[in-house]
């Protein structure tokens, strides 16, 4: 679970800060207050624990976000660091792990559904609904064409030979399990992940 304590600490600290601020305003000149060092950007963050998505050492990371909880604010990641509690990495990270924030917030992240029509020279943006309708139709048509309920010897084989599926190694067990239900629902056999590459 996300650490509720940090939220509570945040409130406590803010309240205390306001009270002290109230007193300070009366006694400290404005210029001195402005020159006081700013708190660390991670001082008021919400912390979530996560695992580095790169190699398989499995380093734990702490993802610091600002702006959550308030209903009208989208949380944003301000920092990702190694988790000192992990017996594997004890807070350390390699150069790739240390720059994970850039991976999450890369300006190359895909944020829209893109479609390339047959023979087209370009991507066009479509909605999820359009994409789902089209993709489901393609899958259904291919399955109806390629599904083999029985083989030449009349044995029940219920297999689909003309659609392949790959992936999963970049995602969680649970996603992999859902992919297995998806592929066995279709009857798809040609299925591989990065473990063979």
């Amino acid at each position, binding site marked *: 679970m996300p650490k509720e304590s940090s939220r509570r600490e945040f409130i406590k600290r803010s309240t205390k800060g306001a009270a002290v601020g109230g007193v300070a305003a009366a006694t400290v000149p404005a210029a001195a207050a402005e020159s006081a060092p700013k708190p660390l950007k991670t001082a008021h963050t919400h912390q979530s624990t996560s695992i580095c998505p*790169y190699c398989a050492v499995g380093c734990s990371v702490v993802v610091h976000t600002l702006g959550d909880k308030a209903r009208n604010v989208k949380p944003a990641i301000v920092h990702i660091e190694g988790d000192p509690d992990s017996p594997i990495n004890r807070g350390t990270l390699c150069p790739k792990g240390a720059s994970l924030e850039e991976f999450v917030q890369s300006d190359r992240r895909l944020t829209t559904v893109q479609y390339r029509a047959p023979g087209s020279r370009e991507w066009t943006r479509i909605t999820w609904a359009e994409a789902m309708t089209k993709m489901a139709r393609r899958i259904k048509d291919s399955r109806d064409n390629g599904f083999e309920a029985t083989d030449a010897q009349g044995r029940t084989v219920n297999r689909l030979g003309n659609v392949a599926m790959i992936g999963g190694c970049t995602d969680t067990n649970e996603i992999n399990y859902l992919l297995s239900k998806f592929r066995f629902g279709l009857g798809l056999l040609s299925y591989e992940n990065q473990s063979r590459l």
Partner: protein
Amino acid sequence: MTNGWTDVSNADVVLVMGGNPAENHPVGFRFVMEAKRLRKAKIVCIDPRFTRTAAVSDLYVPIRSGTDIAFLGGLIHYALTENKYQRKYVEQHTNASFLIAEGFGFSEGHFSGWKDGKYDKATWQYELDGQGYAKVDPTLEHPRCVFQLMKTHYSRYTPDVVANICGCTAEEFLKAAAMITIAAAEDKSGTVLYALGWTHHSFAVQLIHAAAMVQLLMGNIGMPGGGVNAQRGHANIQGSTDMGSWNNLPGYLKIPRANQGTLAEYLKSNTPKALRPNSLNYWGNTPKFMTSLLKAYYGPHATAANGYGYEWIPKVAEGADHSWGTFFDEMHAGKMDGLISFGMNPVANGPNTPKMIRALSKLKWLIVAENFETETAAFWRAKELADKEYPQSLKAEDIQTEVFLLPAACFAEKDGAFVNSSRWLQWKEAAVDPPGDARRDQEIIADLFLAVRALYEKEGGKSPEPVLNMQWNYAKPHVPTLREVAREVNGVDLETGKQLNGFGELKDDGSTSCGNWVYSGSWTELGNQMARRGQVDPTGLGLYPEWAWSWPANRRILYNRASADDQGKPWDGTRAPIRWNGKRWGGDTPDYKADASPDSMAAFIMLPEGVARLFAPDLVEGPFPEHYEPAESPVDNALHPNANANPMLKTYKSDMDAFGTAKDFPFVAITYRLTEHFHYWTKHTSSSSELQSNFFVEVPEELATEKGIVSGTKVRVSSARGDLEGPALVTKRLRTLKVSGRKVYQIGLPIHWGFVGKVHGPLINKLTPSAYDPNCGTPEYKGFLVNLEKIG
């Protein structure tokens, strides 16, 4: 890994071979340095390239890429002839004493039974007694016992033969052998760390088998600081392996074959029988695992009367395979309609890039869910973006493939569990929402599946039952939570509705469901065990049993029963992972029945033999690993020139599957990763792109001098598949090797670039061949042939 990262610090000897953890698993490598600091462990690094791992090792030996089995075969020979193996362990815990059928042998590069390009394995089998148990000779003297056959088989692997094949000197080999076999002492442990340097070969599985044999001879399996440890290259490559592939269902249950038409027939073929009277043979529980999986898949539709829905699981034709090389070859032949890719990039990571691009251009449709626009999503732009590099690619106008590129959430935007290479299932939290219209993969999968199902409900169609009967009973079917899924995977008692405590509670009567039996115990009535953050370490061995959850059964060291002798006395009393107190085993979760006395059954409970296999008849090219040359090799096989490459080598015959010879392509090429990049992803992030912005070609000094190349000179590297260009990096790291009396040069090629991203460069797999391991289908990315020319 049989053991785990934190356990590596228990080693007395660390053999790093086929991997480079200092650069590619830097944080994991700290446990190697801990072993060195705390136990004065010796580090032995065997690698074609002098890596940063080599730089901190006690001994580095260079070898020619693809000759690791010769080196390990030499170690087996050395251990047996110099009496540097743990005799009691071998007697008690391996199949060394098992008798093999009459007629088994090896000559001219082939095992017995070789005929017309195929093996008949009749002579590779155990000799059985009247009750179906394997006959044994505990003295290991019988001429047909595994121990004697092994001794004979490896008698050819003398230090001189090893040196001649591998390209090191016999002295270097002997130094390494002396250091590695320190672990033969009962109170010493040695670990083996490997990665893709071992698996990217056309004999990868046999290579790992050879390593396992060495570790068994040293008595290192089941020991802290021991084991055979794959470091693995993706965050959840272990989990995706655990969840199945073309030939496996979740939990390493085999996908049915067409001749296994009913559940009863499937279970009969796939449930092993004990091969010794004292073998627990845990896979005897296969009916419980399989029935519970079918209940998880088909829910109320799975009944005893319909074999729990077994008929809806697809059946593979006998002899057929649907591995990577095969279905991309079928795609290339125009036999495939569509491909769905969740987070994979075949144009970059499949062998023979031009063939991958051409194969995709023959699809009717392609669906890609990704964080970034990858080369696979953009394959139809290859001509536009990198015409010079991919001249065989078609113009976009001539490619009729319809492409859907779906923006998917990244790791920090989803919860769920990754399994690291230590088999630890570590739960992560979702920190933020995906950006823009990007969606979490579980929602994409659910929407797509339910949309297809809705079409079958509305229109009917071909065999709708498998689609309609797959259980999808999440609280919000279009938005399943990964918590719901994780609970389903763990398994449920369908009578009480309670989460199962572990796979010991599974039943074969339909009263339990379980999505993956090896994960059972990961989410019990006590909650999510994968999210645990406990710091305790009761054994003092760095096993951290309350941090996350390890499959199976939270066991941290596999085969740990073998850390003690057959009476239960630990080989090393100072670091026993489990101990027998007269009533129960304590310490790590025992790989044994928890309350069974040490002498009541054999140690390897997962194998029908009850002991580990030195002799492994289930592999396709032989029960013992043998040195074969890579599919493309600069020399003839010194052991048997008439059987050069793996006799069972898997290749394909399309017009794009060319192979070269040393006449045109005289140099051995290896591919590798750099510390600053992750695979083909980090060319989309700033710092990695800045730290390693450019592709380069690592050229050995002597070859560079011959060709007038200095660092920075532009060179062309070509193979039978294509060519690429880049600046040379002249290096001492790739030593000139002497192989079969001649000089062999090796060329180093880092992999991380492509035609989309913040930085661009050639895709290395443009050069690699469609040559695959016949057991598991890994391609040969190490040890293929190239030519090198100076062009700048």
